[in-house]
C-alpha cells in the first residue's frame, strides 16, 4: 500500500519538482539575510560561567578580598534617569536598575559573581552567575515616596555566598545562598547599574511603536563595613564599558568614562565623602538578549525560506489527494485497496516521510550555510548551543511534515485543491505574517497560540528572561509557546483534520 502511494508520488514530475523546489528555496533563502554588517571577532559578547552570552557592565567600587569575608552597607538614595527617547532626562528609575553589593571573580566581563541588590521596581533581589535570580523583600518607600533606606549584607564563607537584607540594620532576613565558582582572591564591593529600557509607545492595529534607550542610575551607600582580609584601598571603575581602565578612587572627584568606539555614554563615576559612597553607573549584569534591546541577529533568520518551502509542500500535500478526485483515480485506488482508512494512512506516511526528509536536509544545510554567510558579511549572530540548532532543524522537518499531512487531510475533506490550499495557508502562513507585521502584541500572541502557526516556535533560538526588560514580541523572534508546545498545537490540528478526513473518506462516494 505504501509502495503504491510512493509510486504515485514519485512519478508525477510536478510534485517531485515541487519538493525539490522547496528544498532549494529553503537553502537559497538562507543566504538572504547575509549582507552588510561591520562586525568582526571583536564584536563577540562575553560569555558567562554557564555558557550564555551576557552583558556585564556596571560601576564597581571594590577591594580585593582573600578568603572568607563580608560586606555590609546601607543604601540611602537610589535615583535614575532615562538617557534617550521622548522621556530623556526624566528622573525615573527603570524597573531593573540595580544597586547593591557584589562579590566577583576579578573584573573581567563574564566572570562568576554573586550579588545582593535593590532594584528599581522589583525590590531586593539576589542574583548570581547572570541567569539566577532570587526575590527578596519588596523595596520600601519612605514618607516622601522615594525608596527608604535599605541595609544589605553579602557574606562569603568557603564556597557559599549568603545574601541578607534588613530594614534597620538589626533584624536581618536571608535572601538567598549561592555557590558561584569563586577563587580565593575575589573583588568585593559596591555596584550600581541601569539597563537599556524599552517600552511600547503606540500599540494599534497596524504598528507597534517602541521607544527605548540607555538609562543611568545613581545610588548612595553609607555605613559601609567590611570583614575579612581585604586590601586597604578602594578602587573604582566602570566595568564593561568602552573604557574599563581601573582608577583609584579619590576623596571627591567623580571619574568620568572616556568615550570609546560606541556612542558617548552619560558620565558614570563614583565619589566618596565622609564615608558616603555615591555611585553612578549604567549597563546591566544579566544574560544578553536579542531583539529591541539586544544585540546581534538570531540564527532563526536563516530559516526564513521555510515559508516558501511550506507553500510548495502544502501544495503537494493537498494535490496528493485532490488529484485523485479530479482525475477519477480514487475509484481505482479504492478498488485496489478497499480499506479506505489504510489508503489515507499510506498517503499520510508517504507524504509526511518525504517532506520530513526534505525538510531535515534543507534545514541542516540552510542553518550553517546561512550562519556562515552572515558572519562572513560582518553580522553578529547570537551564539546558540548545538542542542538548540538540532532542535531547530528537526523541528522544522516536523513542522513541514505535519503541515503536509494537514494539507492532505483538508484536501480529503474539501475535495477541491484550491480551496484546501487557501484554508491551509490561511491557517499556517497568514497568522504568522499578520502577527509580525500588523497585529498588536496581545492579539499576536493569542493568534500564535491558537492557530497551527504556533508551530513556528520550534525555530525560536532566542531565550526569554524574566530578569531582563525587553520587548518579547513575535516580530523580534519570541513566540508565546515553547517549541514543543507550538508543535503540539499543529499536531493537534493535524490529528483533528485527519480524523475528519478518515470519517468522510469512508462515508462518501469516490467522486
Amino acid at each position, binding site marked *: 500500500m505504501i509502495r503504491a502511494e510512493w509510486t504515485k508520488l514519485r512519478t508525477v514530475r510536478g510534485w517531485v519538482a515541487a519538493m525539490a523546489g522547496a528544498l532549494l528555496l529553503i537553502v537559497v533563502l538562507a543566504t538572504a539575510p547575509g549582507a552588510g554588517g561591520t562586525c568582526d571577532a571583536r564584536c563577540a559578547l562575553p560569555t558567562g560561567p554557564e555558557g550564555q552570552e551576557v552583558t556585564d557592565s556596571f560601576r564597581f567600587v571594590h577591594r580585593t578580598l582573600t578568603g572568607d569575608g563580608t560586606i555590609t552597607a546601607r543604601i540611602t538614595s537610589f535615583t535614575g534617569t532615562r538617557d534617550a527617547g521622548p522621556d530623556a532626562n526624566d528622573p525615573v528609575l527603570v524597573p531593573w536598575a540595580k544597586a547593591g553589593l557584589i562579590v566577583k571573580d576579578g573584573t573581567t566581563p563574564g566572570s562568576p559573581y554573586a550579588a545582593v541588590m535593590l532594584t528599581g521596581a522589583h525590590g531586593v533581589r539576589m542574583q548570581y552567575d547572570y541567569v539566577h535570580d532570587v526575590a527578596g523583600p519588596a523595596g520600601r518607600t519612605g514618607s516622601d515616596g522615594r525608596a527608604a533606606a535599605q541595609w544589605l549584607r553579602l557574606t562569603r564563607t568557603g564556597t557559599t555566598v549568603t545574601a541578607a537584607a534588613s530594614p534597620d540594620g538589626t533584624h536581618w532576613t536571608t535572601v538567598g545562598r549561592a555557590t558561584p565558582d569563586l577563587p580565593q582572591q575575589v573583588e568585593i564591593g559596591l555596584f550600581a547599574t541601569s539597563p537599556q529600557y524599552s517600552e511600547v509607545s503606540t500599540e494599534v*492595529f*497596524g504598528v507597534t511603536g517602541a521607544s527605548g534607550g540607555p538609562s543611568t542610575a545613581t545610588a548612595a551607600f553609607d555605613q559601609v563595613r567590611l570583614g575579612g582580609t581585604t586590601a586597604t584601598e578602594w578602587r573604582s571603575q566602570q566595568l564593561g564599558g568602552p573604557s574599563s581602565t581601573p582608577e583609584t578612587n579619590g576623596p571627591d572627584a567623580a571619574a568620568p568614562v572616556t568615550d570609546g568606539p560606541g556612542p558617548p555614554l552619560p558620565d558614570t563615576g563614583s565619589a566618596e565623602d565622609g564615608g558616603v559612597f555615591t555611585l553612578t553607573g549604567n549597563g546591566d549584569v544579566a544574560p544578553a538578549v536579542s531583539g529591541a534591546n539586544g544585540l546581534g541577529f538570531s540564527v532563526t533568520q536563516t530559516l526564513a525560506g521555510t515559508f516558501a518551502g511550506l507553500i510548495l509542500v502544502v501544495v503537494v500535500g493537498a494535490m496528493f489527494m485532490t488529484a485523485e478526485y479530479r482525475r477519477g483515480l480514487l475509484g481505482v485506488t479504492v478498488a485496489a485497496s478497499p480499506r479506505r482508512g489504510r489508503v489515507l494512512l499510506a498517503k499520510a506516511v508517504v507524504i509526511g516521510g518525504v517532506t520530513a526528509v526534505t525538510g531535515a536536509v534543507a534545514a541542516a544545510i540552510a542553518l550553517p550555510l546561512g550562519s556562515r554567510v552572515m558572519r562572513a558579511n560582518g553580522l553578529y549572530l547570537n551564539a546558540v548551543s548545538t542542542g538548540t540548532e538540532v532542535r531547530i532543524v528537526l523541528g522544522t522537518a516536523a513542522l513541514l511534515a505535519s503541515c503536509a499531512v494537514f494539507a492532505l487531510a483538508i484536501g480529503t475533506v474539501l475535495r477541491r485543491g484550491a480551496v484546501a490550499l*487557501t484554508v491551509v495557508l490561511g491557517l499556517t502562513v497568514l497568522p504568522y505574517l499578520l502577527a509580525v507585521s500588523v497585529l498588536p502584541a496581545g492579539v499576536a500572541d493569542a493568534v500564535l497560540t491558537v492557530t497551527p502557526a504556533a508551530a513556528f516556535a520550534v525555530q525560536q533560538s532566542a531565550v526569554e528572561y524574566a530578569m531582563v526588560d525587553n520587548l518579547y514580541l513575535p516580530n523580534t523572534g519570541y513566540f508565546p509557546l515553547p517549541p514543543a508546545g507550538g508543535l503540539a498545537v499543529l499536531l493537534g490540528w493535524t490529528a483533528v483534520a485527519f480524523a475528519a478526513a478518515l470519517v468522510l473518506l469512508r462515508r462518501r462516494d469516490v467522486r
Partner: protein
Amino acid sequence: MRDALRGEWTKLRTSPGTPWAVLAVALSTAAVSALAVTTVRCPCATDTMTLTLVGVQLGQAVAAVFAVGVLGGEYGTGMITVTFAATPRRLTVLAAKAVLVAALVAASGAVGVGAAWASGHAALDEDFAVRPVAGSVLYLVLVALLGLGAAAVTRGSAAAVGVVLGLLYVGPIVGGVLTDPDWRRHFRQVSPADAGLAVQSTLDLDHLPIQPWQGLGVLALWAAAGLAAGAVALARRDA
C-alpha cells in the same frame, strides 16, 4: 470576441460559486478593515489611510482564488476541451475571461473598498482620497489577473493558488528578514504585494521604497507578465 464574452459570462453566471466568491471579496475586505478601525485607539502616529484599507490584504487572497478558479476549474472538470472546441482561438478565450474577471473583481472590490473607507470615515474621520481608494480597487483587479495567468500556466487550480499566494504573502516575510537596507529597499520595489500596496500610503511618501503609482505599475507588470506567460502556455500546449 463578443461570442466568447457571451459564452464566458454564461458560464460564470450559471456557476453556483460565482456569486459567493464575488460577495466574499467585498465582505472580507470590508470586514477586516472595519475590525481594524474599530479596535484602534487614536490619535495614531501611523498612516490611517493604510490602516483603513488593510482589508485588502485578505481580499487579495479571495480575489486571487476566484480568478484562478475561473480558468483552473475548467481543467479540473474537463470543460476546457469543450471551450477550446467552441472557440479555437485560445487567446480570445483568455482575453474574454480576463475582461470578465476584471469587471467582477472591480465591482466587488469597489463595494468592499468603499465600505472599508466608509468605516474608516465613521471611526477615524478619514477623508476621501482618490488615489488610495481607487488604487486599492485596481490592486485587487491586478492580483486577480495575475491569478488568471498563473492558472493558465499551471493548468490547474491548486498549484496556481500556491504560486500566487506565495508571491503575495511570503514576499513581505522574506523582505522583512533581509538585513541589508539597500537589498530590502530593492526587494520591496519588486515584490508584488509590497510594491502594489504602496498605492495606499498617504503619509511619509519620501520614505517609501517606491512611489505609490509606480508601485501599482510594478504589480501591473507582474499581472501582464503572468497573462503573457499564460497566453504562451495556452497557445503552445495541449489543453
